[in-house]
């Protein structure tokens, strides 16, 4: 009896969990083909028009482009800064090292609404006009913590003897960093960057406080939701999802191929 339960309960549970997770995504995907009129809430018939004419609805594509731009810039800045901080935190002894580590956790623990509002009043006090710049500053700030945490784990597992071997083999500190440290940290840095981009791309709360007139994709969808989200937004959402899935599959395939090649000793 217990055996049968174990045999059925786990798969059943897993399937249910997946259905639960996937229903909203499936809904979004399905309704991206809805021949919608004004609102995209009730099913009116199948069409490819939304996919073929994504930018048809005014503002969707602009908002999407803005989000990508902010995501890319924030990711690059946060990743570079965060990687340097992570290395410093693991490798260098300095006063208040543990306090700084703790401080970096704060943005992760603080409610977004507080961060967003706090930043907004800061900008206001300093007389900074809200816009693309302020959004990027805000995004770099909250992505930074995640980058540091992710890369730090990787740095901590890096054997310092490898860098010593590099310098023993005539590499200058800069060359050691480029040829030994960086390649070994790359997997950590890459996942940190992906995480940062994902965080930046779908942030709404902090962005809403600090964007001023700038319209990001989440902001656009939020505003549009009042009168029913346009199907074009569903198209973009689905497309982002598909691209992410394809990217993951490709990475997996690639590393599997590499593994196989290595085992073959070629």
């Amino acid at each position, binding site marked *: 009896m217990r055996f049968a339960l174990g045999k059925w309960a786990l798969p059943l549970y897993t399937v249910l969990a997946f259905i639960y997770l996937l229903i909203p995504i499936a809904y979004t995907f399905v309704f991206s083909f809805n021949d919608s009129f004004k609102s995209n809430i009730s099913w009116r018939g199948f069409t490819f028009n939304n996919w073929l004419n994504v930018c048809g609805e005014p503002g969707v594509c602009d908002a999407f482009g803005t989000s990508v731009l902010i995501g890319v810039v924030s990711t690059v800045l946060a990743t570079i800064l965060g990687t340097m901080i992570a290395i410093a935190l693991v490798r260098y002894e300095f006063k208040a090292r543990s306090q700084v580590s703790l401080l970096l956790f704060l943005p992760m623990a603080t409610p977004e609404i507080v961060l967003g509002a706090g930043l907004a009043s800061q900008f206001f006090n300093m007389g900074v006009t809200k816009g693309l710049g302020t959004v990027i500053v805000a995004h770099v700030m909250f992505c930074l913590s995640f980058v540091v945490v992710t890369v730090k784990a990787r740095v901590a597992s890096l054997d310092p003897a490898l860098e010593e071997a590099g310098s023993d083999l005539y590499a200058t500190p800069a060359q050691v960093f480029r040829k030994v440290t960086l390649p070994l940290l790359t997997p950590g840095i890459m996942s940190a960057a992906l995480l940062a981009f994902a965080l930046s791309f779908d942030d709404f709360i902090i962005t809403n406080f600090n964007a001023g007139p700038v319209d990001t994709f989440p902001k656009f969808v939020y505003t549009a939701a009042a009168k029913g989200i346009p199907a074009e937004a569903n198209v973009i959402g689905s497309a982002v999802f598909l691209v992410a899935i394809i990217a993951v599959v490709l990475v997996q395939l690639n590393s599997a191929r590499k593994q196989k090649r*290595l085992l073959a*000793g070629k």
Partner: protein
Amino acid sequence: MATEFVARGSNLDLVGIRKEFPGFTAIDDLDLHIPAGEFFALLGPSGCGKTTTLRLVAGLEEPTSGQILIGGKDVSHTKPHERPVNTVFQSYALFPHMSVLENVAFGLKQRKIADPLKRASEALDLVQLGHLAGRRPQQLSGGQQQRVALARALVNRPSLLLLDEPLGALDLKLRREMQIELKAIQIEVGLTFLHVTHDQEEAMDMADTVAVMNKGHIEQMGAPEKLYDRPKTVFVSKFLGQSNLFIGKIVETSANSLSIDVVGYKISVPKDRAEKHTGKIAIGVRPEKADLFQNKPADSSSQNLIGPGEVKDIRFTGVSNQFLVDVPNIGLVTVFEQNEGNSTVELGDQVWISWKVEHSFGLADLPADTLDEE
């Protein structure tokens, strides 16, 4: 920047080196001179500071005080990549993101030596790993990784090669082969080797000079035969081979020998083989220099004689038989006899132990457990 390819070996001098870690002195006033082209072995128990010494020479640690000279040039404050030195790390430290071949070629490429890959594969052939050049280090066994680390350092022909237990993970046969290979390379290219090892046989076998290190300083150094024949401290006499020690006050001094009294036995040592000539002294003898007698031999002024004692243990190691004899009031004495197939001594037998006075050695210090008996 770095030196010419196929550099000759260089002198290494450590002058008054001291290395303190927070709350711990790892190296204490170390002086060392290694002539160019010499094979120098550093031998010592775990934690005595061997790796720290190598790291100081490689530039991976800075000395708290003192100077390091390579080829007469003070390098105490230069960076590791500027020193004409390569290291075989105790932990191998192979780059996991490069193939074995790229690992070996790394130093050559850094110095822009022509044909790095060709030279690297030759070095791999030398350590019998040519067929694994394309693999990643993680896909090799410990012994294979160790040989890659060896090739990666050797291929640079540094004027000083630092080896931190480079053969520790190899089986006996491969270890012997590698020892011969290393020695051959060292002689052929004339490199200076500073070789750290736990294996005293390896040290004695390969090195021109052996230094025995203890607690951050060098207890004694010299040619292997001399070091073995004439240890100067209790530590060296016990660490390098085995020794029987007898402790007593000097009671008699003649023109060229001195004698101590140990519970009624007179044990003598030539004056020029004793580190001190007055007071309490420890006199030692190697187990293989002593002989067993089932009947009491005649007294002779050229022989030390103790006994009778009871044979407590006999061990057959193949080449020799090892006897443990309990001599009343003295304790256990170890004697090795050549296994010539004619030993009639059995467990429980009463035996006498005798050795030539000229095989005794007198130490500078006393075993720690006898110091407070005075």
